[in-house]
């Protein structure tokens, strides 16, 4: 067994995928700009990127940690509004504005996530779900009632800072960091809390602290997605971040698979493409049935849950995205 070699090979491979992704995104964006690539497809690709960040980060809490948090869109809102405010209110050159506003969104969402986690991880299971759902509603309602944030009308004319390239870069970085964490002592501690929290505590793991770490990281990345979204759409309203958005994220997560980062990619791509396909096909064939897609997609989810409880990729990874040691060992646990 030559682990060091194998490890080296894997890392190079992941780096290749990352670079290829960013290069392709740049090319596609360029073609789109000069009118050689359909802007509708460009939009879909950008949305897919942002959604991967949301779904993969929530996977830390709902998949690896085995908890059930229902407030992810709330943290996305925090990131979106903070990033939008920084972009709107502080005069900065465009090159500085984007990273700074995104960083602001990440930090704000992370801090709020940490505080919410401190309170909620005194509870588990159903209680955690209800509390995080309540938090999501509080955030949305609070924003709706703050005039400075535009109230229900939201914020408009946010400078356009995001396109497919920036989204691709952020998605790749997010994926890389999440994968690094999952394949480290932290990922193992999250898994063991999911598997048996008492046994975890009795091998010396500070369960609440480690849980809150996952929650904080997930919230911070939701903030990143929010910041990207705000500067891509150029306008945000509180409605974009209510529990329906959380539900969307959950559907993609459960479709793709719990405890699988490649599953998160698969879930987002499959769900987004499916919804768009249904919209187009139904729109062409029978416009009066166009709303059927809202019925077909939940049906597909139900079928998947019935046949594959852990989603398409539950607890497994695509080989080329497997972390070092596991790929070297040929296992896929």
């Amino acid at each position: 067994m030559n682990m060091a070699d194998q490890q080296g090979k894997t890392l190079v491979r992941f780096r290749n995928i990352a670079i290829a992704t960013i290069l392709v995104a740049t090319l596609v964006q360029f073609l789109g700009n000069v009118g050689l690539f359909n802007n509708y497809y460009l939009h879909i690709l950008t949305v897919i990127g942002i959604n991967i960040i949301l779904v993969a980060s929530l996977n830390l809490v709902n998949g690896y940690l085995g908890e059930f948090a229902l407030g992810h869109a709330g943290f996305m809102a925090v990131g979106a509004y903070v990033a939008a405010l920084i972009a709107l209110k502080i005069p900065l050159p465009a090159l500085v504005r984007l990273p700074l506003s995104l960083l602001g969104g990440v930090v704000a969402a992370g801090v709020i996530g940490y505080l919410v986690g401190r309170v909620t991880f005194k509870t588990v299971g159903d209680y955690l779900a209800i509390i995080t759902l309540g938090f999501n509603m509080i955030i949305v309602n609070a924003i709706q009632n703050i005039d400075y944030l535009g109230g229900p009308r939201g914020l408009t004319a946010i400078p356009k800072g995001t396109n497919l390239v920036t989204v691709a870069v952020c998605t790749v970085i997010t994926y890389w960091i999440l994968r690094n964490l999952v394949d480290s002592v932290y990922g193992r501690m999250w898994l063991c809390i999911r598997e048996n929290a008492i046994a975890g505590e009795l091998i010396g793991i500070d369960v609440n602290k480690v849980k809150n770490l996952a929650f904080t990281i997930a919230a911070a990345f939701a903030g990143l997605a929010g910041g990207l979204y705000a500067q891509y759409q150029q306008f945000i309203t509180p409605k974009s971040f209510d529990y329906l958005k959380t539900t969307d994220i959950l559907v993609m997560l459960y479709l793709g698979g719990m405890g699988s980062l490649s599953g998160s990619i698969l879930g987002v791509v499959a769900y987004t493409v499916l919804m768009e396909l249904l919209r187009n096909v139904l729109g062409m064939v029978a416009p009066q049935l166009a709303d059927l897609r809202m019925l077909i997609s939940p049906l597909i989810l139900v079928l998947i849950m019935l046949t594959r409880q852990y989603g398409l990729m539950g607890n497994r990874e695509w080989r080329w995205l497997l972390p070092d040691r596991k790929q070297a060992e040929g296992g896929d646990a």
Partner: protein
Amino acid sequence: MLKIENLTRSFGGLTAVDDLSLHLETGDIQGIIGPNGAGKTTAFNLITGIYRPDQGRILLDGQDLSGLTSDVISRRGIARTFQNIRLFGKMTVWDNIITAFHQRMGHGFWDAVFHLPLFKSREREVCKESLAFLERFGLAERRNELAENLPYGEQRRLEIARALATNPRVLLLDEPAAGMNPTEVEGLIGLIRDIHREFDLSILLIEHHMPVVLKLCNRVQVMDFGRTIAAGDPHEVTGDPVVIKAYLGDEEDGL
């Protein structure tokens, strides 16, 4: 080493552990026996911080542990196994051990976030150490199997290995021989003897199989209805009429 003084805990009107005192010296293997429901496992849960004692103290090398949480107590050097095995079922055998090594990773959070060189070298080191650990327990061949897929005897062994991976000074074993056939029990006795010698441990075990107690323990304490009814040399204690009476009609094997 481990000193338990007047430990008491009640649930509602039931006093599950009543005035338990125990003195585990360095290098001891002591046993706690008693019929089902005598409060033995509750005593373990008190020592490891799963329950808080109503009264009494738990001293490890003179430091009071009562009231601390389980994770702190584990880090102070007390490890345990469970009567009904608690492994990380959907993790591999190897990951079960590596997870228990979390205290000795020796790198920080940001090293893990970016997989910095320190992270990689420490991770490699810990992989190697944990593999040696698995070899020591004859589980190396099984390292990539999910823990829940191991046969029963190996699950027991893995649980003991995982407890030892936290580098404890005191090991608590809750019915390690439960559900084992006589051959497996013999193997277990050998294993406990070996780890006792190799890892420089004091061991406290709950057991119903008298052969295990008689072969391993230098002292045994008998509990019934939460109270200690006898204590001393295993061979003498198990012949004590009071003890036999406590067991009558309850456990047949061994007595």
